[in-house]
């Protein structure tokens, strides 16, 4: 049974181009207590999760957005006439993880971590808006500092940067791989 608040949230998430954040929901519905919005949101998500619909609501970059379910990838690609989605190169992905785990970080630091010149990879990432310049480091030469973007979160289906595996979890992953 859906109540009016759930329906309103559904309409709002549907119409929002970017993932709809709880802050924006509160801004649109100033008279509804945030706890109530949060509860209705949970119910809405559960309702979609349990439904037979081909679309669902997913958390993304701190907000909520509609998406298709993975099993409909082939017909969707056929409609959009996309052969295959472009993937990031190994170089770019490596530089990106270095940024993600060491941000804010300079180009020289990334190069040191990878023992490889990373300017081309950084350029690709900047162009794809997966990283951004966030200022300068207070160090000789005042080099530019880089951080991951909201688009980075959305691209990898993360809600927040904390959703990335922690150093501890990575260590575990490495051990599993070596075992």
């Amino acid at each position: 049974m859906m109540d009016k608040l759930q329906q309103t949230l559904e309409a709002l998430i549907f119409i929002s181009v970017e993932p709809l954040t709880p802050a924006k929901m509160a801004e649109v519905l100033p008279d509804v207590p945030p706890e109530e919005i949060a509860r209705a949101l949970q119910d809405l998500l559960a309702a979609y999760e349990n439904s037979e619909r081909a679309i669902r609501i997913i958390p993304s970059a701190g907000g909520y957005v509609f998406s298709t379910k993975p099993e409909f990838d082939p017909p969707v690609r056929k409609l959009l006439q996309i052969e295959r989605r472009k993937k990031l190169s190994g170089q770019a992905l490596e530089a990106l993880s270095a940024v993600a785990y060491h941000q804010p970080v300079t180009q020289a630091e990334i190069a040191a971590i990878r023992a490889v010149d990373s300017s081309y990879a950084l350029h690709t990432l900047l162009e794809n808006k997966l990283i951004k310049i966030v200022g300068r480091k207070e160090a000789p030469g005042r080099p530019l500092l880089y951080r991951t973007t909201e688009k980075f979160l959305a691209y990898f289906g993360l809600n927040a940067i904390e959703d990335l595996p922690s150093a501890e979890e990575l260590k575990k992953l490495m051990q599993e791989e070596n075992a």
Partner: protein
Amino acid sequence: MPSEIDEGYQIKLGVFEGPLDLLLFLIKKKKIDIQDIPIAVITREYLEYLSSRERINLDREAEFLLMAALLIYIKSQILLPREQPAALEGDPRKELVDHLVDYQRIKAAVGVLREREEEQSQIWRRAALTAPLPEQDLDLIEVSLFDLAESFFSMMKRRQGENLKVIRGKELSMGDKMKEIMTILKERDFLDFLDYLGSHDSLEEALLAFFCLLELIKARLVVAIQEQLFHSIKVWLRKDAPPVTKGKE
């Protein structure tokens, strides 16, 4: 063609992202504890790989050579006789090991990100919204009749240049044309101003359509809006417009 390496590892061309990547591969292949690298063995293996690089395609040669130099340097440090016990000086491998451990973590993260990228590549979000924007969105620029006229006449000039053949015949009335426009708007939500005028076969008919649009704007039945300067002009039905002929709903 992939080359077979002694212990059954398959090396694909260009598979190493850098010297650390290669080093990690060698360490794993030898099943060595990363904290306790037998530097002589690893250095030898590393150099062997470099010398066979036509098989491995190292397009970042300098970086690989730099690592080779570092390995040889560390090896020489270990071999060098010391006056004090090595433990006090610190293990010359330590910095490399720390670096490798950190890099290994980055590699693990790459694995995680690659998996997520794959997963995400199969779900789709809408790129843009098709829903018409509400009429009282004040950020939009309501264009003046002058703007409309200007874009119309510049288009007609262009079309005349195309050496258009004019088809005569149909008797056209303003009432019919206005009804036609309203019907289209009811069905389609909006009209692209230039596209619509351009879709007419004859200049006369297009002119008639233009004056009908002006009439409808004046009568406040429709509204002409430009979402951004220099973008096309769209014509929308006003929400408060009275229904025309037979509405379906």
